[in-house]
């Protein structure tokens, strides 16, 4: 348990002016303020949308009216510029209020690819739950497949990373990956002022693991809760922890054998938890 946690100096936030992405921005700014990191806002002009709007039959169907609405290139261009401006203002406001260094980029292309590309320079990619692509992908699917560049990805499910006081839950396994995962979770819990709930496998090394983990986490002076579960019961323990926690943040390792891409997508899409994924 000696590997160090990723040093978070730069956080990239994917922005599309939706309430969820602006919620992700607030959380990212708060985290940046706590960690002394800089923040980069990225707005992607979706080429899929641009192509769509140029088609002669590009019309939209909404839920408020049976009328089909023509979506032209000019209208889409204006809408995108407006959204980018709105995102920039929100970033300036939030970061300015917290005294966090910030910058803003407008990219053009496929949203997933562009964010992946941009996040190569970042330590953490922060995303809202929905609205990240014109193409109707599930957020979970995007997270599982597309975001592989940043060492850390934070997918926010609500406006405030769960209700006030909701814990940070970390699902960990023994091994080298345990230390960085625990430290990432501790950093997040300390930055948010929350308790840390650790779910770890039951076994012969349980006491040793716990002792070493507590030594590792002692520098953050966190309120710690432990759940030990047999490997076969980890899914059940996870469900129990998530249910009992009433929202919050789940910190997981992307390489955790019990949380494959399919399960991770389901977690992102269906649980009430925001996710911090360590690559």
């Amino acid at each position: 348990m000696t590997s160090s946690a990723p040093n978070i100096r730069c956080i990239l936030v994917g922005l599309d002016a939706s309430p969820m992405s602006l919620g992700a921005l607030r959380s990212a700014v708060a985290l940046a303020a706590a960690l002394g990191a800089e923040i980069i806002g990225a707005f992607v002009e979706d080429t899929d949308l641009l192509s769509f709007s140029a088609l002669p039959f590009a019309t939209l169907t909404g839920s408020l009216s049976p009328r089909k609405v023509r979506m032209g290139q000019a209208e889409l261009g204006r809408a995108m510029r407006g959204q980018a401006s709105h995102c920039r203002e929100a970033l300036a406001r939030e970061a300015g209020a917290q005294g966090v260094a910030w910058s803003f980029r407008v990219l053009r292309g496929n949203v997933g690819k562009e964010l992946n590309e941009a996040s190569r320079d970042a330590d953490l990619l922060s995303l809202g739950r929905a609205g990240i692509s014109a193409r109707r992908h599930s957020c979970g699917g995007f997270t599982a497949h597309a975001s592989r560049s940043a060492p850390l990805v934070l997918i926010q499910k609500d406006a405030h990373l769960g209700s006030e006081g909701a814990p940070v839950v970390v699902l960990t396994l023994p091994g080298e990956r345990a230390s960085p995962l625990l430290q990432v979770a501790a950093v997040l819990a300390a930055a948010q002022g929350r308790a840390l709930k650790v779910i770890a496998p039951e076994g012969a090394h349980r006491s040793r693991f716990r002792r070493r983990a507590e030594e590792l986490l002692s520098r953050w002076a966190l309120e710690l809760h432990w759940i030990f579960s047999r490997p076969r019961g980890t899914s059940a323990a996870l469900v129990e922890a998530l249910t009992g926690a009433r929202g919050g943040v789940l910190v997981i390792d992307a390489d955790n054998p019990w949380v494959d891409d399919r399960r991770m997508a389901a977690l992102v899409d269906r649980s009430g938890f925001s996710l911090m994924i360590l690559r």
Partner: protein
Amino acid sequence: MAVRSLSPSKLRRRCVLKLLPFRDTSKLEEPQGAFGQQRALDALQVGTGIRHSGYNLFVLGPSGMGRHRLSMRYVEAVARQRPVPDEWCYVQNFDEPRTPRALRLPAGTAKRFVAEMTQLITELRGTITVALESDEYRGRREAIEQEYKELQEGGVEEVQERASKDDIALIQTPSGVGFAPMKDGEVMSPEEYEKLSATRQKKIEGRVDVLQTQLQEVMRQVPRWVRESHKRLKELNEEVIAYAVEEPIEELARRYEGLPRVQAYLEAMKTDVVTHAAAFLPQTEDGSEGPGEESVDAHGFERYKVNPMTNLSELEGAPVVYEDHPTYHNLVGQVEHRTKDNALSTDFTLIKPGALHRANGGYLLLDARRILMESFSYEALKQALHGRQIRIQSLGQQLSLISTITLEPEPIPLDVKIVLIGERSLYYRLCQLDPEFRNLFKIAADFEETVDWTDETVPRFAQLIGGLVRKSELRPLDRRAVAQVIEHSARVAGDSHKLSIRVERLADLLREADYWAGVEQKKRIGADDINKAIEAQIHRGSRVRELMQEQVVRETFLIDTSGERVGQINGLAVLQLGNYAFGRPSRITCSVRLGKGELVDIEREVQLGGPLHSKGVMILNGFLGARFGQRRPLSLSARLVFEQSYGGVDGDSASSTELYALLSALADAPIKQGFAVTGSVNQVGEVQAIGGVNEKIEGFFDLCAERGFDGEQGVLIPEANVKHLMLRQDVVDAVREGLFSVYAIATIDQGIEVLTGVPAGRRGKQAHYPADSINGRVEEKLRVYASRARASMRPAKAAQKKPHRGAESGDV
């Protein structure tokens, strides 16, 4: 028979010391009951005893009588024997919030009910929170939300799947959803699309058109799904909250069995809590409350509070309230407002009780003058008494001064006994001007200002003094001081057979005497301290009197106090300045001449004479006519005037004085200027009683003393006023030494003899007065006037006939 001056013993009554068998007042007990106020106490007993409407009381009498204290003491004693009344409180009317409900609670339980409701609110807050944060609730809620989410997403995903089979992507934008052809996993660019064959393009567009129609079918159902999900969530919330709140509310309701309105309120409260379930839900992400629910007002649980109008839990007996600032709102209560977002708002918790609420079931004492001075208060009081209910209405709205939304709380039944305390003039004025007044205030408790000065009342009066001394924490009075106070009380009453029981004035004298005793470091207040206090009171108020006397001494204001003058006499008037009254001499003169029998009152001619004064002068005319005008017409013209009088003159106390001046002028008999006279007269020449006799005597006495006594000076007063004499000791001493005299006069004849030294004269056998008597000289003067008048009439008659004769001759 010659009139003799009064002996000194008649001028001031002494208090007999043997009636005061104590060393000082320290051990005297207060008199039982209200000393000298039995009539008022009887009225209070009847007024407080009859519970029917209209039997409210008006306690009347001059201020300083202890009306407030005595009324309060009596009413408090009565109230202690009566049960503590039921209590009232206001609660939310859930059906009509503008009309808060009034709940009646048994005596002493309002405070408990408020506490229990507060406790219930706390419990409900916790119970509801626990219920809504329970895993079970969250699970059921999420299941419903998920069900409709899946319905919506499932529909869209189905269309998406169909689209992807044709290599068409579903594109999502903030404005809606569209479809676009794909190529190599990307949306086809317009250029690539243009390169497609027309058939291919037509096929794609046709397919997109079909997909859009299918998507529309899905979208069309979205609002219905939203409505359904909201309905099911609302039902879930109501089910969960109804179950959570049922037991706590019913438990409280069981404690108030037998109070149907309380039961009904708690039932309505339960329904309201359930109906407004959304208000108790955790806030959603955008800060709004739960979807589609009618929200509780901004105060949340405040609406379930209880606003008590009274707190009688500590009370023994019925409440007794004295409202010393009876404004409209202090009387009937008011609905206050709070400012929020620059607007005024209110609710039932801002209903403030008035004095009527606090006194309901008991007694409310009010100062009559104050309530009449306050706008709308008197009318509001009458309205409440007529309607037998307290209705809180905004004065601003009644007068259309404000248009802010306010409340109309349910009226509360009123059962109160009002005790108005005021002056007599107010009572009589209200009786005269307000027809409703007598129906609402049927009992008048009239306070006496005096008690008889008898051997029985003296010890009780001493007890009254002792009580006042103890209450004000003063030095005790020795028995001579008590005697002095008793004598002074008779002087204040203006009657040697009465004692003033104006306790406030009496207490003032005792406090001031205590001050003087303190200056000399005495342990007891002595008679000299009482005298010093009286003298100091007089001195403080006598600046104007001294100025006036100075004017006389310096002969700016002409008053003779020696010598003799025909048709000139000294009258006496009383001036009241604040609490101080003093006598002032005035010169009255009379001139006579031949005339037609008119008696001219110059004061009246110039409109300086009041009606009573004019009446007195007319009585003189009647006297003259009756005594001297039986055989011949009165052919005189007399003019009477108050010399150097520049203000108004009223009252008839100078009518005898004016008659003396008239008789002097007619008889050509000089009047001794060392005398001053007071007294009214009737048509047969009897001298009648007047007011302020002591002040009048002392006023002339002081002037004579200033100029120096000559042994011939004195005052003539009506015989009927002798019983009122309580003169200053220096006046009594001067009379004893023969320096000054006071004559008690019964008739004008007695008076004129004293004033002129000439007999008045009685009619002889020939019905004539003796020639050398006053009446004889007057009769002779009037006879001469009559004959001259007849003589003067003859040439005039002759002159009237001449033209007639001339006409006749002319005609001839």
